[in-house]
């Protein structure tokens, strides 16, 4: 079992829809959770970062962590064609060599259709 499981999609939605992207993780020691966005032929860039459980909102994006079920979610409201990208969930922790190693999910490819 991978440490972070994520459905690769692709997920196709109409413009304006609410998008829900999800991941599960297997090691409850982790406390830092991130979402990276990766456009085609580019490197990933940090979108949102949360610590422990709860919600964090940033504009149209909401990140949610449920530690009891080991579930990570990213919601995108009023989705736009410019949101079309691959979204990678990630978790930090499992201290190795004095730093917090980050483990990434496989990424979900999202397409928002105008």
């Amino acid at each position, binding site marked *: 079992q991978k440490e972070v499981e*994520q459905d*690769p999609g692709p997920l196709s939605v109409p413009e304006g829809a609410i998008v829900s992207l999800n991941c599960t993780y297997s090691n409850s020691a982790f406390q*830092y959770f*991130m979402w990276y966005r990766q456009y085609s*032929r*580019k*490197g*990933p*860039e*940090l979108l949102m*970062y949360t610590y422990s459980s709860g919600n964090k909102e940033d504009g149209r994006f909401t990140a949610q962590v449920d530690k009891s079920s080991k579930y990570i979610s990213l919601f995108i409201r009023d989705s736009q064609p410019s949101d079309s990208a691959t979204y*990678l969930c990630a978790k*930090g*922790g499992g*201290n*190795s*060599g*004095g*730093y*917090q*190693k*980050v*483990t*990434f*999910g*496989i*990424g979900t490819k999202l397409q928002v259709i105008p």
Partner: protein
Amino acid sequence: GAGVSQSPSNKVTEKGKDVELRCDPISGHTALYWYRQSLGQGLEFLIYFQGNSAPDKSGLPSDRFSAERTGGSVSTLTIQRTQQEDSAVYLCASSLGGRGVVETQYFGPGTRLLVL
């Protein structure tokens, strides 16, 4: 300011040849990471450098892979005797390098390697 840069952007090589991939991190970032991204596998950690400390090589898939970081800045990932399964996008990232915390990693655009 300048972000992480990688070269070459694309590399096509023949099976059995050696390749070198270069990464220039953001100035002032002491932590540097290499990842491999292939279809169906996601981002696979390869190696981590932090300042002058010994690198964490735990993700290197075989002894054909090696990396070095000169002067705490530029890094080179070398793949010897390339195999077709080495075909992937190789991504480099850097971060400020604060120990004990999870930091934002800034990624370069990657090098697309194709082994024929």
